[in-house]
C-alpha cells in the first residue's frame, strides 16, 4: 500500500525539507513576498507529515526547522543570493507547491518539475532589446517628450541593455553597475540632443530612468512591511530607494558634466 516504506525516517524528512527549501529559494529569487515563501514551505512540510514547522525568511536567507514524533527534529538553512525577477516562474512555483501539498507526488517527480521550471528560458536577447526600447519610448512620451525624444530614448534603451549585459558580465557591485549604466545613458542622451537627435535631454532621461528604477522591489518591500516582515521590508525598501537615487544621479551627472 505505502509506496515509501521509509516515510517515517530522518532521511525522508531531510529530502522533502530540501525540496521545500528549493521551491522557497526559487520563489524568493523570482520576486515573491516573504510571507508567500514561508506559507509555501509550511504547507509542503505539513503535507509530508511534519507536525511542527518553523520557518524564518529574510531577503538573503531561509531557515526551517521541522519536527515530528517519528524523525525527531530536522533543520536546514539556505542562503539566497541574486534576484532575478520572473513572475511566470513565480506562478509556476506557486502552482507546484499547491500540487505538492494536495497530491504528495514522489520526490523524483518534484525534483524533475523544479528542474524544468528552473531551466525554462526567459525572453531571448533580441526580445529583451525590444522590451527595453518599448518601455523607454513609452515613458518619454508619458512625461511629455516629443516623438523624436521617444525615438532617441528607445535607441538609448537598446544600448543600455547592451551596457547592462556587459556590466553583468563584469560582476560589479550593484550600485556601481547602476551608476555606470545610468551615467552612460545620461551621456548618450546629452550627445543625442547636441547632435540634434532629440529635443530635451530631460525627457529622454526620464524615460530611461523609469526603465531602470527597481519598481518591483519597491512594491514588494511595502507588502513585506505590511505583512509584518519588517526586516525584509526595510532592507528591500532601503535598497530600492538608494538604487533609485543612484540611477537618477547617474543620469543627471552626465548631462551636468557635459554642459
Amino acid at each position, binding site marked *: 500500500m505505502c509506496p515509501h516504506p521509509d516515510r517515517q525516517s530522518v532521511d525522508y524528512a531531510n529530502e522533502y525539507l530540501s525540496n521545500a527549501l528549493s521551491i522557497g529559494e526559487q520563489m524568493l529569487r523570482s520576486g515573491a513576498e516573504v510571507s508567500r515563501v514561508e506559507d509555501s514551505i509550511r504547507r509542503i512540510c505539513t503535507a509530508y507529515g511534519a507536525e511542527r514547522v518553523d520557518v524564518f525568511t529574510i531577503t538573503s536567507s531561509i531557515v526551517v526547522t521541522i519536527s515530528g514524533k517519528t524523525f525527531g527534529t530536522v533543520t536546514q538553512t539556505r542562503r539566497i543570493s541574486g534576484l532575478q525577477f520572473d513572475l511566470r516562474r513565480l506562478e509556476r512555483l506557486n502552482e507546484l507547491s499547491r500540487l505538492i501539498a494536495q497530491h504528495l507526488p514522489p520526490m523524483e517527480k518534484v525534483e524533475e518539475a523544479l528542474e524544468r521550471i528552473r531551466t525554462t528560458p526567459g525572453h531571448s536577447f533580441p526580445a529583451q532589446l525590444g522590451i527595453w526600447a*518599448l518601455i523607454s519610448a513609452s515613458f518619454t512620451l*508619458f512625461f511629455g517628450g516629443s516623438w523624436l525624444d521617444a525615438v532617441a530614448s528607445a535607441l538609448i534603451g537598446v544600448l543600455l541593455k547592451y551596457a547592462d549585459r556587459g556590466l553583468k558580465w563584469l560582476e560589479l557591485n550593484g550600485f556601481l553597475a547602476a551608476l555606470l549604466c545610468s551615467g552612460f545613458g545620461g551621456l548618450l542622451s546629452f550627445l543625442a540632443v547636441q547632435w540634434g537627435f532629440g529635443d530635451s535631454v530631460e525627457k529622454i532621461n526620464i524615460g530611461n530612468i523609469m526603465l531602470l528604477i527597481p519598481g518591483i522591489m*519597491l512594491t514588494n518591500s511595502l507588502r513585506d512591511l505590511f505583512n509584518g516582515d519588517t526586516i525584509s521590508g526595510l532592507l528591500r525598501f532601503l535598497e530600492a530607494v538608494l538604487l533609485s537615487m543612484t540611477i537618477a544621479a547617474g543620469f543627471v551627472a552626465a548631462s*551636468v558634466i557635459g554642459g
Partner: protein
Amino acid sequence: MTILIQLVTAFAGSLGFALLFNIRRDRLFPAAMGGLLAWGVYLLIGPLVAWDVPRFFIASLALTLYAEIMARMKKSPATVFLVSASIPLIPGGSLYTTMQYAVSAQWEAFTTQGMNTLLLAGAIAGGMLCMMAILHVCHRLYLLVRQA
C-alpha cells in the same frame, strides 16, 4: 490629446514591464490595463483634488483593488498585476528633478523637491497598504458571515 497620449503610453509602459517580468501571455492585457486604469483615475480626480499627493493615494487605492480582483479571477499572485500596474505612478520625473537640484547644489530646492518625491512614493505605498487592509477585513468578515 495630451491625456490620450498619457493613457496610451501608461498602457504601453505597463505592458513593457509585464513583458520584462515575463508575465504569462494571457495575463498581459489585464496587467497593462491596470497601468491605464491607475493613470485614468489620477486624471479623473484632477478637477476635484488639485494636490498630487492625495491624487496618487486614490489612484493607488484603485489599482490595488483592481490587482487583487484580477489576482482572484486569474488565480495568480497579486504581485503579477500590482507590479506592472503601479509603474506609471512611480515618480520618476520628480526624482529626476530632485537629483538635478542636488547635482547643481541648490539645496533648498533639493529639499523641497525631495520631500515631494518622498510624499508621492509614500502616497502610493499608503494607498496600497490601505486597500490591502480593507480587503483583508472584508475577507475576514466574509468568512465570519459564511460560518454563521
